[in-house]
């Protein structure tokens, strides 16, 4: 109970200062947005959000058999995003660059083709652009398949001299193409995923949000460790020691306050990331929670250590800054360690900050499950225990 009272006193002191609210909440949000913009520029990930090529489809008879078949095929494609429009809208969108091409299906297309007449689809695209080229290539396959399905059905109806055979035959032929083309579609989709498995997993905030979150959890130590230094400077720590409060209770109270502050800050940034930036922490809510708790424990015990070692406020700021920069840079909070490589990455990966990132990104980028965070949670907890024991040892040796 007294531990709780002490922690509440600490928290009210921390939050009393409006500036600390700015540092703990506003700054990290600004930095997240800033870093997110920076990553967006270098990871061409804009398209990755939806990397299908946009195509306007002008179709005057969407209910005719072939039109319908063709549309269904295109729409299920992983490479083309079909948007049905009328001709004017389509040309407008094309000029504005909203679509890479316009495919116009001529009036009476189904009837003409099935009657065995020539009919031509009209593709309007910038053939010199890579998107224009792609869309031409992508359309060629299903169109020729469609034509050959019609041809096959007609031949099979002729062979059996039974026009009633035409319908089932074309359905069959088309579905066969469909099965086969699924194979080719799979390869297209694989190419797309490989491309999007760049280090932001399709959303630049997947790197920025957890990175800044971990970094500012450490930065928050400036506020929380100062409370401890103040306690010594104002001699209130000495007075605490003359009450019936046991030394471990004093340590626990301060630790609890630091943990609470860090944890609340982290949760706030998680919520912001989830709601405002589409960073999907909630994909694995328990995993996110466990990582945040372990992160809070590690950061709080480091804060305790800084508070015990530092003699004046300026040293708190200095030590916190050193910790922040060291763990941010080495731990891959600013850029992924994979990008650094070598000894740097090897050392970096052992850092507690890197473990925190690892845990969060297993959820966010790699799309792994709850069991993927256990290692990160365990390592963070071990670091927390180490820092805590160091702090308690220094606290015991402290001159009061």
């Amino acid at each position, binding site marked *: 109970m007294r531990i709780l009272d002490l922690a509440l006193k600490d928290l009210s002191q921390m939050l009393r200062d409006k500036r600390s609210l700015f540092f703990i909440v506003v700054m990290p949000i600004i930095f997240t947005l800033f870093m997110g913009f920076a990553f967006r520029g270098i990871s061409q990930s804009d398209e990755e959000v939806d990397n299908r090529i946009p195509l306007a489809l002008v179709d005057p008879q969407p209910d005719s058999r072939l039109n319908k078949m063709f549309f269904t095929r295109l729409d299920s494609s992983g490479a083309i995003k079909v948007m049905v429009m009328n001709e004017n809208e389509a040309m407008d969108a094309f000029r504005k660059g909203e679509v890479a091409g316009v495919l116009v299906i001529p009036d009476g297309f189904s009837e003409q083709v099935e009657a065995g007449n020539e009919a031509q689809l009209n593709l309007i695209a910038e053939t010199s652009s890579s998107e224009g080229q792609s869309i031409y290539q992508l359309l060629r396959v299903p169109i020729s398949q469609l034509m050959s399905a019609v041809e096959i059905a007609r031949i099979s109806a002729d062979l059996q001299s039974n026009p009633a055979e035409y319908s089932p035959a074309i359905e069959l032929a088309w579905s066969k193409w469909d099965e086969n083309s699924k194979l080719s579609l799979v390869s297209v989709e694989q190419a797309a995923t490989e491309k999007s498995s760049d280090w932001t997993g399709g959303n630049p905030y997947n790197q920025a949000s957890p990175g800044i979150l971990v970094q500012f959890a450490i930065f928050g130590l400036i506020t929380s460790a100062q409370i401890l230094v103040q306690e010594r400077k*104002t*001699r*209130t720590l000495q*007075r*605490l*020691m*003359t009450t*019936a409060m046991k030394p471990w209770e004093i340590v626990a109270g301060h630790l609890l306050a630091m943990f609470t502050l860090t944890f609340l800050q982290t949760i706030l940034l998680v919520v912001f990331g989830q709601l405002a930036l589409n960073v999907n922490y909630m994909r694995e809510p328990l995993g996110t929670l466990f990582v945040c708790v372990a992160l809070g424990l590690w950061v709080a015990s480091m804060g305790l250590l800084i508070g015990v070692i530092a003699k004046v406020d300026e040293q708190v700021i200095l030590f916190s800054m050193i910790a922040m920069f060291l763990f941010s840079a080495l731990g891959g909070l600013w850029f992924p360690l994979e990008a650094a490589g070598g000894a740097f990455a090897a050392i970096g990966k052992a850092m507690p900050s890197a473990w925190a990132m690892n845990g969060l990104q297993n959820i966010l980028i790699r799309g792994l499950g709850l069991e993927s965070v256990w290692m990160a949670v365990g390592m963070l907890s071990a670091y927390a225990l180490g820092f805590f024991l160091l702090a308690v040892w220094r606290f015991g040796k402290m001159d009061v």
Partner: protein
Amino acid sequence: MNAIEVKNLKKSFGDFQAVQDATFSANAGEVLSLLGPNGAGKSTTISMLSGLLTPTGGDASIMGHSVTKEPELAKASLGVVPQDIALYPDLSARENLVFWGKMYGLRGAALKSRVDEVLEIIGLTDRQKDHVGKFSGGMKRRVNIGAALLHKPDVIIMDEPTVGIDPQSRRHILDNVKELNRQGMTVLYTTHYMEEAAELSNHIAIMDKGRVIAYGSHDELIKMVGQETRIDVTLNAEAEKILDAWRATEGVARIDSLDGKITALVDDSNRVLPRLFDAASKHGVRITSVDIQEPNLETVFLHLTGRALRD
């Protein structure tokens, strides 16, 4: 049972012995003063009593609980007013008292009414909402005392609670001490003002250079110097010119010179003073002022150490 019992207490910092074999005790319900100059070892002794420092040797007990063996029990019956203000400057007087009350285990309505009482005692009810950091030195000292009273301890230790404050606050604090004592609290009062020790105490322990050099009631201590009267003299010349001659004068128990002021302990000022004037004339020295003081604690300290209590 003695409320405070100190036996052969020792504390050394490296080779330096800050407290050497201190022994004294206080009966329940009395005021005991620890009187001594700067660096005498008063705060070090108190730190050991309040569990902040571990004694190098000896032991002490509060209400029968050894401070080394049962520190929690000893602390529970003890309130400590540290020499330095120990409060949160960014919290109000009331918030400080509420917090310290909680640290002493008070809760709810009991806490609230006790905080009101203590604010009344220290006379800061109308300033309770102000931040302690904005208070004057005297007001801070009063809150500093208040924070030690919340749990109504059996024993309260005050380490120079009146240093550096205005006469009004000082008066308020001295009256507080008397009132607390009247209500039954045992008080260990540390000071280097002999007037305070004389006014407040049932017993006085005089400390110097880490040792308790005298212990007793005010009157008992005064008797140590017998009928000696203290005479302070200033001259128009160097003290050395006359010091040896005066030291040899009949009726002079002890004579010392400090910063141009000569202090003599004599057995009967009416008889000795004319002799001092005679000797001065013979040596061609003129006495410019004479101050005769009845024996007091200052005289006692001078008698024991040859130095003034305050430098």
